[in-house]
Every structure is written in C-alpha cells, then in structure tokens.
C-alpha cells in the first residue's frame, strides 16, 4: 500500500474563482462589447467637448449649411464628416448629443423600474399567498399590453418632457423586474438561512432587507443591462413617432425621424448615421449583457 496523506476536512478552495472570472472577462466578444460600451458612454459624458460643433447653438448653426453631404466643409470651416441635416446642423455632433439624451432616459428609467420592481418582487416572493397573487396579477395585466402602446397612452396623458418619458418607460418596465425578482426570492425564501433569521426573531422587513435582497439581486444585474438596451429602442420609437423627448433635446430616435423627410431625396445620411449609432449602442449593450450572464453563471466555467 502506498503512503497515504491524511488531510483535515478544512481544505479551502479560494483564489480559483477570481481566476475563472478573469478568464471569462478577457474573451474577445466580452472585450469588444465592453470597449464599444465604454466608448459610447465616454462620448455621451463628454459630448460638449468631443462634438465638433454645438448643434443647438443657434449662433453657430446656419441654414446655408443645410443638407451637406458627408465630408463637405461647413461655412465656419469645420468638416461635417457625416454631413448636415435640413437645418444645417452637423450630424456627427447631433449624434453625440443625441446619444447623451438617449442614455440618460434609458438608464434613469431602468434604475427607477428596477427599484420599483425589486420592491414589489421581494414583497410578493417573501409573503407569498394572497399578497403574491394580487401583485402578480397586476404584473400579468401590465405585461399583457404591448410596451409601446402603454408608453404611448401614458405620454398622451402625462404630456411632453424628458421626465415624462422617463416615468413612462419606468412604468412600462417595472413588471419584468418584479417577476424576475419574485422568482429568485421564492427560491431563497425557502432556504434555511431565512428560517434561521426568523427563528432569531428578526422582523420581516429586516429579513427582506438583510437576507433576501442581497441573495435575490444577481439575476437583475443581467436583466438591467438588457432592459437598458430595450428602453433605448422604445425611447427611439417614441421619439420617432413624435411623442418622445422634446425637440430641444433630441435623442437618437428624434434624429432618425428628423431625416426621414429627406431620405427619398437622396440625403440618406441624416437618418442613416443616427440609425447606425442606435443599432451599435443597442447591440453593444445586448452583447455585453449576454456576456455578463455567462460571466456570472458559476456553472459555465470556460
């Protein structure tokens, strides 16, 4: 018989997790989407510095520059790399500023919806029974209407303005978060550490806050990224339909609709480039969300 090494029971396996995480993070698809995402956010944050011109400064914008093709020089000497629109605004600058509006609307509505959904989902998952049934029926009703329809009706009621769009988008989205959190919360609620906590005499709100919330939140991280992309496109649709953000603060959607009148007369760039940007943004966020799902899933260890 060979020599036997007797190990004690407390063999610990630390360090390997962070290694796997790092390896997952450095895969090409993750890095590319992450890079693109950073670029987009960077552009949006520093729009006023990065943009060649300020498209909303009426002193600079001249009607004489209208509908220049990509690469032409404007009156003040700057080159309009992506052309100009019907009012003589530089499309590149408009996109960079529009990106900012789009992201602000999408992210803030996602955050509001997440908090509301988290609250409802945790309550429903923790208490179960009638409370759960009641809340989930509201969620069902909410989800049975097409998101765009609900948003349209809400905006018709609320009126125009960025804040109104954010509220409308949050109302459209909270139900998805609520349902996801509830599912996670029900699984956690039946685990013994929750029972141990109630054995200690902790109040329900404390149990929800300290024990249930931290353990139910991880599926939301992925959902929130994907939903942000979703709300960018809903917002773009609303703006395209003319009920979205006000004309003074155009988003990618309103830029697309702005150029729609000229698309048949050959000035494709006014619509095309904002559309391309919208596609790139949504795709980057979606791919990143997908990668995040793989990274956070402990079962995929490749």
């Amino acid at each position: 018989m060979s020599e036997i090494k007797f190990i004690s029971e407390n063999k610990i396996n630390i360090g390997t997790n962070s290694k796997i995480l790092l390896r997952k993070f450095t895969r090409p698809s993750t890095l590319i989407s992450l890079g693109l995402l950073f670029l987009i956010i960077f552009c949006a944050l520093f729009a006023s510095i990065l943009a060649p011109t300020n498209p909303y400064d009426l002193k600079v914008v001249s009607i004489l520059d209208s509908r220049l093709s990509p690469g032409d020089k404007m009156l003040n000497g700057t080159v309009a790399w992506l052309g100009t629109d019907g009012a003589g605004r530089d499309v590149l600058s408009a996109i960079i500023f529009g990106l900012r509006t789009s992201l602000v609307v999408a992210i803030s509505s996602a955050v509001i919806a997440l908090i509301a959904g988290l609250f409802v989902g945790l309550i429903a998952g923790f208490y179960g029974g009638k409370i759960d049934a009641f809340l989930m029926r509201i969620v069902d009703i909410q989800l049975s209407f097409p998101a765009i329809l609900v948003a349209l009706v809400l905006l018709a009621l609320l009126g125009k303005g960025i804040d109104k769009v954010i509220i409308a988008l949050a109302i459209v989205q909270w139900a998805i978060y609520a349902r996801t959190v509830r599912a996670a919360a029900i699984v956690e609620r039946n685990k013994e550490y929750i029972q141990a906590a109630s054995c200690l005499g902790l109040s329900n709100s404390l149990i929800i806050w300290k024990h249930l919330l931290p353990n139910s939140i991880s599926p939301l991280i992925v959902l929130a990224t994907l939903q942000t992309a979703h709300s960018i496109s809903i917002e773009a649709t609303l703006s395209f339909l003319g009920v979205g953000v006000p004309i003074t603060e155009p988003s990618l959607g309103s830029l697309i609709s702005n150029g729609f009148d000229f698309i048949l007369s050959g000035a494709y760039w006014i619509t095309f480039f904002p559309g391309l940007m919208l596609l790139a943004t949504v795709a980057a966020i979606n791919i990143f969300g997908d990668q995040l799902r793989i990274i956070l899933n402990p079962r995929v260890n490749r």
Partner: protein
Amino acid sequence: MVIKNLLEIDDLNIRFMSDQETVNAVRDVSITLSSGEVLGIVGESGAGKSTIGNAIVNLLDAPGEIVKGKVIFEGQNLVGMDDKAMRTIRGKKIGMIFQDPQTSLNPIMTIGNQLIETIRFTKDIDDVSAYNEATELLESVGIDNPKLRMKSYPHQFSGGMRQRVVIALSLAGNPDLIIADEPTTALDVSVQSQILELIKSLCKKRRLGVIIITHDIGVIANIADRVTVMYNGSIVETGLVRQVLLSPKHDYTKSLIAAVPRSDIKLKRFQSIDFIEGNTHRNKRINLDNHWLGEKLNQKKSAKAISVIDLNKEFILKNSILFKNRIYLKAVNNVSFDINKGESFGIVGESGSGKSTIARLIAGLIKVDTGSIKIFDQEVVNNKNRGEVINSQRDVQMIFQDPYSSLNPRMKVQDIIAEPIKFYKTASDDNMIIEIVSDLLNHVGMSKADLLKYPNQFSGGQRQRISIARALASRPKILICDEPTSSLDVSVQAHILNLLKDLQDELGLTMLFISHDLPVIRQMCDRVAVMRKGNICEINTTENIFNKPKHSYTKELISLIPKIESVN
C-alpha cells in the same frame, strides 16, 4: 459454477486535471471479485469510491482519466476499450443501480416499456417474449401484480418500489456483475432493509458478482461478504466483513467504526474519532457563572421547557374553490408531549411522519392550526401579546439539516454570528461583539481566523458548527436540532454530536432532537417519541424504546436498524 476472478482491478490510478489543480481521485487500487460474492466499498465523501464504480464501466466524467492500471472483467481489459465495444458490456454483462430511483427512470415511459426496451436492446427476441420476460423480472424483484404494474408510470410507485424497478432494469441483460452506487441512501430504513435483502438473494440465486458502494457501514454489515475501506483515494483495508468491522487494523477504519452511532448501548461520547477533524478541539469549558452566555440568564422556574397539547397542522395538497374538493394532508394529528427542562427529547420517524413540522411549529416558523404550545409555561399559540411571544420564541433556537443553505452566502461568518447579538443588543459596543463572536466560534471548535471568511469557504461540518454558534448567540434555553447531521459524513457527525452533548452539559440546554436515524437518537436522547403519519405511536425513555418497545411500529423500526454488532 463460481468464477474465481470475475472482476479484477489492478493498480488503478485515476486523476482529475483542471487548470487549477490535479486531483488524484483514486490511487493504486486493486480489487478482486468472484461471482456470487458481494463486495462493499465503504468510505466518506471524497474517498473516490464512486469514481471506481464509474471507471469500471468507462463512465468517468471529463476531466477524469485513468492514468494507469487495468480493469479485467471476464478476461477482458476494459480500460481503453472503445465506446462501441463497451456498449456490448455495459447493460448486458454489467448492470448498474444508482442512488436516486427518482432520476434513473424515464418519467414519461411506462415501467413495462422501459423494461421491454432494455430487454430487446440486450437480447435478440420479439416483443411478446420480451414482455413475458419483463413480467418475470418484475416478479423476481418482488413487485406484486406484475402484469398490471407494467402499465404504470414511475411516479405511481413509491421510492422503494422504484428502486426495485431499477434493479429489474439492471438485471434485464442477465448480467454477471452489478454495481450498486449508494442504492439505499435515498430510502427509508424499512425499505432499505428490503432492498438489501433483495440484492443479496439475487446475488446468491443468480451467482452475480455485486459491488456495493456506500458510506454506510450498517449497510455493509448487512449485506457484504467482503469489504474494502477507502480513504482519500486509497484503500486502507480490505478483508472479510466480520474481520474488518470487529477487529479493524488500520487507524482510519478504527475511527470510522467508532464514529458510527451504536444502537445497543448509550455511550457518553464518541471516543477515538480524532482521526479526521483532529484540529478542532475546544480548549475550555464554559462556566455559566462568569461567561457572557450566562449573563442575565433569568432562570425559569417551570420544570417543563416545552409543553405541547393536542397540536394539529394540515397542509393543503390540492387547492380548490369548493371546500369539499380540497385535499388536505394531516401532517400533525393531535400530538401532545412535554419536554422537561434540561432534557434531550427525541422525535424519530420516517420521512413524511411530521417530525420536522412539529419542530417548525414550536419554533414559530409556521402557524399552528389548533392546539397549544407552551414554552416555559408561556402560551405562544394565538397569544395577542406579541412581546410575550417574541420573548418566548427567543429562548428557542433551531439548527437545520442542510448546512449548505442554512447560512446566508453573502454574509461573513462574523456578521452571521453577530446578528442576534446586535438585534437583541446584548453587547455594549462593537469590540465586545467581536470578542463574544470569536469566543463562541472557539467554543464550537473553530478559530478566530475564520471570522472574516464567507460560508462557501467551509465544509459541511464546519458550517454546521457556525450554525450552532449562531443559535447560541441569542442565548437560547431550548435548542431544536432538525436532522442536524443527516447530510454529514459519519466521522463529522460524531464530532458534531459530541459538540452538542458538551454544549448541553455546559449550558444546561433543553434539546429537541429530530432524526430518522435511530442509533443517533439513542446516543443523543433521554426520552423519545416515535412518530408515524402525523401521530405519536409511543413516548418512552430511550432505554425502554430500544429494549422494550411496546408499539408494533416501534418494534418494526428497531428490528430494521442495520447493526455492525450483528455481522453474520
């Protein structure tokens, strides 16, 4: 005819390689098996016993690989054999029985079709003779009315019946060797003994070679002819069951056998089990007079810690708007008992007997339907005064079965144990909390260095120690242990049971101990209640329950305990 060397494993080495580490799961293992013989492979989790079973039939999970060694079955080396050739052996020459009968049967096929399919796969016969053979097989594994049962689906069978079907399936190809991996672990004790009896008789009747892989020494004692003890990938001892179990040679075997709770006599502690978790000694006793745990411990005068009268609890199995269409399960049916202060009271019963429900009712985790529960003479059922209830419930703390889900994975050990202290404000400042927490950890046999770790960095036994420390942190007077060791290895179980005994001694705790495992109950409890289907059959002192059982069900349970002492 006895084939001398039906299976011969020679110098088998298996390793699992990953980026982080290489695990030598099996090292230099040699085993021989003759036909008509039952060989038991016993060991604790991680010993490599299942890996050997899988390696024999080439079912090693990636990244496992056989580094060297031979598996010679009927003169053929199975190592390195290609999949096609292996398929003619697996299922036909070698049958397999797995742990969970729930998952090893296809839920959407009738038992009959599954049997016929397997028979036709192994033999070249038509449907009618396959059908006849299937019914014969079902009959031979002790299923009544085989013709009728052929049409049933797996969910229409109980766990034990399902395992019989799995055995019938493994016999379908008329194999020479059966590998049974924990065949009775998921079953109740009464079913377990029937299944073991069946495997044993089939082995003798059909001249099969059987390898039983198990963690349970009681199973080995019941069924095996020879036993191989494994530890950490290597064989430490092989021999006749009688010889190995009654006069073990190796230190590991000795401590493993010492750790198995005995059902014949009550020992004060488990002795000589320091082999495995050797470094978890508690270095001092708790003296209640000057210890934090004893502070303000207002001694209750009542002699009865818990008094339960006519307790009832129903669960709705099938809901319906019409009341008469609802189907209820009476989980607890008119149960009454008293637990005296400082006593260890056991509740024993098979799964579904309602014993865990009682624990949860007393701990206030689920609502009582009717009846009364008094904790130190304080009624807690339907008591409008919330303060009184919370105060009483605080005296009762629970230790749960599954150490992997009973600790919040996102909290540090320090915060987990400090939670009740902070909540009840029983410490004056943060430094004192840390001091108390590390002292408690020390008393459950863990070190101060563990304070900042997360639960996933610990083994099952260590997590259970943390759970115990958390329960103690609210200064309970009653500890409810709901199957506290049933998911732990036997040596770890012995350590945890010793710890609970010590703590009870030192703190004068009252204990309600719930288990399906009679020997564990025997070691832990002063008095025992035997439960069946929501009713209490018998309450008596442990000595009387085990030596002079009155109720027929108790007698049956006692007679079914697998005993090491009764090796044939």
